[in-house]
């Protein structure tokens, strides 16, 4: 920020910024994510039915007012199952991104602050890891970790980590030479405190958007793994597992695969749109 910029803030600095509504698409995306979070916390807000209740006589009902998204091969209501799936899917998305970012931060800090050899070694390791497609890397781990949501988070987190680690490394390298780090060092702050208070926050700020969008992507990857039969097992109401089960009936009942997949698409789209909006906001503020 230049001197004149700093001056121009002065008059009226006490006033609240003018209330400007975000664009419609960002509002819609935000509302969808909010609804999803509510469904994850308390699915009964949206549906009264039981996601696991079997009703063989009502199997393969097409979408109607009674069954909004139709029913599956055991007569279970698909809308209910999709709503109940929100918890698992959000947990997977957030968990995988958290794991992946933790790995990325560790690698990024070692590479960025560990001296020239560490920087070379880490960036080379990341280049190699980056040559593994995400799904291939995730598959290598998913196959042997067993089934369930934990292994799914681990596999997805590891699979997406190289990409994030590259970004974190770049940001740490940019931040370590910044004036404020120099200043902290000159003030005699211990290195760990400088890392925690100066380098890490500044390196992570541009990644907020990436993290937001990454949650949607992680949901896609983990549902792809469960679609392949690795991870959550039926009859769990997880979107990828529902797709995998519906796959055998594509010819007969398209709604079994259409609606769970639609929610994956909407979630990814909402995180992307919302992430873009955050990006504009943050860049507009000069961050």
């Amino acid at each position, binding site marked *: 920020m230049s001197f004149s910029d700093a001056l121009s803030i002065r008059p009226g600095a006490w006033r609240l910024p003018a209330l400007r509504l975000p664009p419609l698409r960002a509002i819609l995306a935000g509302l969808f994510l909010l609804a999803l979070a509510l469904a994850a916390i308390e699915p009964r807000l949206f549906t009264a039915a039981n996601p696991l209740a079997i009703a063989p006589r009502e199997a393969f009902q097409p979408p109607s007012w009674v069954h909004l998204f139709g029913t599956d091969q055991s007569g279970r209501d698909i809308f209910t199952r999709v709503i109940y799936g929100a918890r698992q899917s959000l947990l997977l998305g957030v968990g995988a991104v958290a794991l992946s970012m933790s790995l990325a931060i560790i690698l990024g800090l070692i590479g960025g602050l560990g001296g020239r050899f560490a920087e070379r070694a880490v960036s080379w390791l990341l280049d190699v890891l980056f040559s593994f497609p995400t799904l291939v890397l995730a*598959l290598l781990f998913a*196959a042997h970790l067993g089934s369930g949501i934990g292994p799914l988070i681990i596999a997805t987190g590891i699979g997406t980590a190289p990409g994030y680690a590259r970004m974190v490394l770049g940001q740490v390298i940019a931040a370590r030479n910044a004036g404020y780090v120099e200043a902290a060092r000159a003030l005699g702050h211990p290195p760990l405190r400088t890392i925690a208070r100066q380098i890490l926050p500044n390196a992570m700020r541009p990644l907020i958007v990436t993290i937001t969008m990454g949650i949607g992507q992680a949901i896609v990857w983990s549902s792809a793994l469960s679609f392949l039969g690795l991870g959550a097992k039926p009859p769990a109401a997880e979107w990828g597992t529902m797709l995998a089960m519906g796959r055998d009936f*594509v010819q007969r009942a398209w709604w079994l*695969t259409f609606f769970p*997949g639609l929610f994956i698409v909407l979630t990814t789209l909402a995180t992307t749109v919302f992430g873009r909006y955050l990006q504009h906001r943050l860049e507009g503020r000069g961050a």
Partner: protein
Amino acid sequence: MSAGVLAFPSGDGLGRLGQRVAIRVLVGILVLLASATITFFALKLTPGDPVRAVLGGPTANPSPETIAATIREFGLDRPLIVQYGLYLERLVSGNLGVSFSQRQPVASVLAQQIGPTLQLTASAMLVAWALALVSVIGTTRRNRFLSAFGSGLEAVAASLPQFWLALVLLAVFAFGLKWFPPQSRDGFAGLVLPTLALAIPLAGFLAQVTRESLELALDQPFILSARTRGLSDLAVRLRHALRHAVLPGISLSAWAVGSLIGNAVLVEVIFSRQGLGRILYQAVTRQDIPLTIGVTLVVTIVYIVASTLADLLFVLVDPRIKAATR
């Protein structure tokens, strides 16, 4: 303009090119060794019975003598680091081992399966770029409605998971309209749906990147100068702006090829199509370690080749790079 770019390198340039290729190959070999190492440890450190895995997976029923012989051959009773040494030794001598799930040498399985996957990846890449360019050139900086429509469509396309798109295409065009076969065998008709399932999400992604840089390029002074020379809008876009706009997309191409191969796992499984992806899936689920490592090595090679090609293409499209490296 393009004649200078495409001109055959002169004597000095050729030598430098040879040097760069040699460095590339050397780095490539190192990357392959590292990739094999990562796969080796990923598979070793995750649970599972390695003896059984080598001898035919969970379904095999080997005799005690065979088990003992295998342990000796692969050094499975020795420390991990020794096993790793033995493994690298076999690998460097070109021995990829035998796949038990396919009951033939890994090398010949890979040779059979790489063709269909490369065909699928290449066609998806071409279709993705074609769709992306049509959308970007057609709708960027047009009237408000058209621009919003274009970028909205691209955002939706980029959010489509390949496996879901594949299922929807299958339901609509294979089972509903019966235009294409539900199972992708040889021939053009079988290639269409898998290609679209891979290409549409990638197209959305490439278009988003290209749109952003096309918008930047259209603001440049040389665009105004081209317009004042009386060029039509389309000519300005195609001949002047596009060259700048495609650069970020090209530099992502190697990554895109990798992700196409990764997603080919899903698409090949859904369309019961031959290929590396389906083989990798089978290998991983049946703990076929030799075959898994073989496939990941091939995927790494494809990635290295693709990133080399992308670099060359980048220089072709952007002569400034070449001038800078001279």
